[in-house]
């Protein structure tokens, strides 16, 4: 049975490598800028949702305020670059570090809350942060920050002529977030987090320091989301508070994981691959016919999937493999 487990882990890794390789080849065949844009966003949300999943899926601390860390990443990078000329690569790491520290500072009081109260706290804190940024003149207040174009270069992480470099970066980010999750899943932290989610009292009785476990999950999760935010700032090259810290980002990080399978390795990827193109397509094709139709279609779909597969889309795969095993 030990080998059975090791086999599954290895199979996950091989499947991920194959999928990444296929994804890397797609731009060779697809030259459409619109489609490229959707692919970049899909990969970015896969990475974000995967990171959100660490705190909310594995550790069970549902956050609907992760837009805060996304915005922090975006703002740190943009401010460091425009005000001090710091390269976005360093801004990315700085944004990640700042977010991780803030996540722990906020976790210190908030992790004493359980269930719905914790969720409410995360929403409120993100909204407060949004208001603060909107009124912070030095950071551009409500007008936001225009990231000046200094020509295409990897050093400055700016590309105006082609979206391809962004695509590969987003792919790398999604791969990193997946790998981090994969690695954490079979580590002490991974087991502790799931134990904390299922039953904190029992976890504590087995030597798990519940509070520290939550703090660890929050830090890793916030760091990765902030790197995603930094990337987004470079990708759109103009940010304002609503466009990087609005509540919709918190939802868009949570939804792919929830829909794909919360607390699972493949859930966020699967959810993002289905959800993000769907969002973009419904917006382009029915969004023009009157405001809201795209959202109705989108919402109806989410309701349908959650009713049919309450454990997420990944449960289809386990059902299929279960049937295969039963047939043997």
């Amino acid at each position, binding site marked *: *049975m*030990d080998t*059975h*487990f090791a086999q599954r882990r290895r199979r996950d890794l091989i499947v991920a490598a194959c999928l990444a390789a296929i994804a890397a080849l797609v731009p060779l065949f697809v030259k459409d800028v619109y489609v490229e844009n959707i692919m970049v966003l899909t990969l970015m949300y896969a990475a974000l949702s995967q990171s959100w999943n660490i705190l909310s899926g594995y550790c069970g601390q549902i956050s609907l305020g992760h837009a805060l860390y996304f915005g922090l990443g975006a703002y740190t990078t943009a401010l460091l670059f425009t005000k001090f000329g710091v390269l976005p690569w360093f801004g990315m790491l700085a944004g990640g570090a700042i977010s991780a520290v803030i996540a722990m500072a906020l976790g210190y009081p908030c992790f004493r809350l359980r269930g719905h109260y914790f969720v409410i706290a995360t929403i409120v804190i993100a909204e407060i942060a949004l208001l603060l940024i909107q009124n912070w003149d030095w950071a551009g207040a409500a007008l936001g920050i225009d990231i000046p174009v200094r020509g295409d270069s990897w050093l400055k992480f700016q590309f105006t002529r082609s979206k391809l470099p962004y695509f590969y970066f987003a792919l790398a980010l999604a791969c990193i977030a997946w790998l981090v999750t994969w690695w954490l899943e*079979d*580590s*002490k932290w991974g*087991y*502790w987090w*799931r*134990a904390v*989610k*299922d*039953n904190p*009292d*029992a*976890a*504590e*009785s*087995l*030597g*798990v*320091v*519940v509070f520290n476990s939550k703090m660890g999950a929050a830090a890793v999760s916030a760091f990765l989301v902030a790197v995603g935010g930094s990337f987004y700032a470079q990708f759109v090259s103009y940010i304002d508070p609503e466009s990087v810290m609005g509540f919709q980002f918190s939802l868009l990080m949570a939804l792919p994981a929830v829909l794909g399978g919360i*607390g699972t390795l493949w859930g966020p990827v699967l959810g993002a691959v289905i959800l993000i193109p769907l969002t973009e397509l419904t917006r382009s094709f029915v969004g023009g016919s009157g405001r809201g139709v795209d959202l109705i279609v989108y919402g109806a779909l989410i309701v349908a999937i959650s009713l049919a597969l309450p454990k997420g889309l990944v449960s289809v795969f386990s059902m299929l493999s279960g049937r295969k095993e039963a047939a043997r």
Partner: protein
Amino acid sequence: MTVLLETRGVWQRFGGLVANSDVSISVGRGEIVGLIGPNGAGKSTLFNLIAGVLPPTQGSIIFDGEDVTKLPAAERCQRGVGRTFQVVKSFETMTVIDNVIVGALIRNTKMRIARQKAYEVLEFCGLAARADKLAADLVPSEKRRLEVARALATEPKLLLLDEVLTGLTPVEAQTGVELVRKVRATGVTVLMVEHVMEIVMPLVDRAIVLNLGKVLVEGKPTEVVRNPEVISAYLGDRHAVGA
């Protein structure tokens, strides 16, 4: 026989309610001690105080020669206190073996070794065949055994069993009794709260009877069950006269 666990004048008050008053007990290394008493006697509270779920209002708890009164539950587990819960608290979304791995991780940092260790504990508890099942899919008696397995994986010096034999069929209960004997044979000291007298009395070396938050009697199981005070605590004064 040296003392492993000692409570010294432990009090626990919840508002106006006194759950434990001046409880001083001791458990020797290698013993199986039964903690019995009618409902509301304060057994579970005492258990929680020993496990570190909450600190006592007054008094101290000495474990393995150290004052652990102020240490939280996780820290006590680290020092060798393992426990089960009266109402089972399995990690329902995790597999049986993963449940046990959580416990094994406190002594083993390498995942491969923790997994190996967890599997051995499952074999010891007779759950190895269910290793890859979800904990949620176990039947109640198996969930009880999983509680024990999880606690054993932390390699405790003292194992606190909170009504692990209650509510089982006679056959299941007998398997449970054998498991407890096996556990003691490996050198683990056992303190168990139990309701079912006829099962627990032949098993324990010594019984401590709690009533109304106080220690009523302690001694050999055969003596304890004949004690008029114990009979009156369980059945009322009328029956005690006859004894």
